[in-house]
């Protein structure tokens, strides 16, 4: 026990990571008793790097986003952001969900500027508006600033939602399956947009996804979560240097990584390698 405490203290002062989860354990209370979701989950994400988390359905990926954003506190373990322990929501975090949740009574520009009404920012109103227009240009929504969300397609709404999530220059961006509900072409388009955004301004990103190709194309590090209650079953560094293009996904290296991830997911789902072999036979 004593050694455990000193261990934590050392990390407290020397956390070099932007996002760090230490032995996070969490259970939901249900009628049938506690439902354990996370079991000693530890993840480290260095500053300005991109981490994708994949795992079987219902393994607690969304719980993870709520813990990192401070919307929830874990039963046990610690969540650290930027060298500070997370106990409540922080304005330096940006979030985007599978549902773009744009406010229908506002124009796209007003939607993008929404966080500026909550967060105290050194940006003036004019600067923020200029930044909003710049971000909209960057994601390909030039000329849509004054439109209503109902006039936009699903992919365009998600683009606007991305702009909103980074308008206040958060140092951490949390994406909970933001491309999940889009068609394949729009999705690939938005992946490239993500790379453009990151090239423009660095931020640390935590992406929850079901799409293995998406995780390999976007991330520097892919974490495979085990089945519930989940821990980090496998961590893979994505070593694709230089500017990535969609073609890279078909390189032997990427194919090999995808195969590893697929295998890890099957293990997480409880289907062993032998089982798949049996099924084939």
């Amino acid at each position, binding site marked *: 026990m004593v050694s455990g405490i000193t261990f934590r203290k050392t990390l407290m002062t020397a956390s070099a990571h932007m996002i760090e989860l230490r032995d996070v354990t969490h259970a939901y209370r249900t009628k049938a008793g506690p439902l354990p979701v996370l079991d000693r989950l530890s993840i480290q994400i260095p500053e300005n790097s991109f981490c994708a988390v994949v795992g079987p359905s219902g393994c607690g990926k969304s719980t993870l986003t709520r813990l990192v954003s401070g*919307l929830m506190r874990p039963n046990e373990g610690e969540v650290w952001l930027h060298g500070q322990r997370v106990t409540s*929501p922080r304005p330096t*975090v940006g979030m985007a969900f599978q549902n773009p*949740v744009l*406010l229908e*009574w506002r124009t796209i520009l007003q939607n993008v500027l929404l966080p500026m009404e909550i967060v105290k920012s050194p940006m003036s109103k004019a600067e923020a508006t200029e930044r909003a227009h710049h971000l909209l240009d960057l994601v390909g929504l030039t000329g849509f600033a004054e439109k209503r969300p109902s*006039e936009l397609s699903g992919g365009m709404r998600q683009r606007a939602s991305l702009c*909103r999530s980074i308008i206040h220059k958060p140092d951490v961006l949390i994406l909970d399956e933001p491309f999940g509900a889009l068609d394949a072409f729009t999705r690939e388009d938005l992946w490239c947009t993500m790379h453009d955004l990151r090239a423009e301004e660095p931020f640390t990103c935590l992406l929850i996804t079901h799409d293995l190709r998406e995780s390999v194309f976007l991330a520097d590090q892919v974490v495979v979560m085990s089945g519930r209650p989940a821990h980090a079953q496998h961590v893979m560094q994505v070593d694709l240097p230089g500017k990535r293009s969609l073609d890279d996904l078909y390189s032997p290296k990427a194919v090999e990584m995808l195969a590893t991830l697929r295998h890890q997911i099957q293990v997480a789902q409880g289907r062993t390698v032998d089982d798949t072999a049996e099924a084939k036979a």
Partner: protein
Amino acid sequence: MNDTLRKILAPLLFIIGILAFWEWIVWYKQLPDFRMASPSDLIPRYIRFWDLFLIKSWETLWRTVAGLGLAVIFGTLIGMIMGFSRFAREGLYPILVGFNAIPKATVVPIVALMFVGQHDFNTVLIAFMISFFPIAVSVSIGLSTLEPEYRDILRSLGASNFTIFWKIALPKTLPEFFGALKVAVTLAFIGTNLMEIVSPHGRGLGDLFDSGRISADYPLMFAVLFALAALGIVLFYVVVFLERIFAGWAERSPG
């Protein structure tokens, strides 16, 4: 024929047609005006009682609006409590349903006796009682069905509950609120008139209607009906107008 012209002409034609048919049937059956009024009988009544019509209409109008205003305030308040607290929702909902199940026509004589002579008070009270249910229910449903993501986008930035209510929950509930208000305004109007007709020596158009009934003045009664219709239309379209201003975004543009 262009669109605007048709929009004006078509209803006008139908109105004239119906009035003409009505006039004809009274003339054809040779009905005396103590048995059935014809449209041509109404005009002399309006001329003769014009002052009364203006005064009584105003009385009916302001009491309906006052009752509705109270219903909006209390209905929204109760709706908010029920929308945010599951405990309050589960506790209050059966009571509200039970209260709403009582036909208000039976409550009217009770209230009329309870506050006998206090015409303004009991009329406003009935208008309020009859119209606040749909508002409370719609606001509570609007708030309790708010998707958690909507809350989370602001909460993750550290926004307070009040900010979330003001910036998201309230505007998002407005379409439901106005839908309920359209029902409520009609109900409040019914409530006002019920009380005006039932309470002796009452006020408002209901009282004028009752006077017509007592003196078997059919043309006057019909004249009051038309005045009520006009007032009801005005009230309804005021709500529609407010809806366009405050919740116009919810209307899908055609195509």
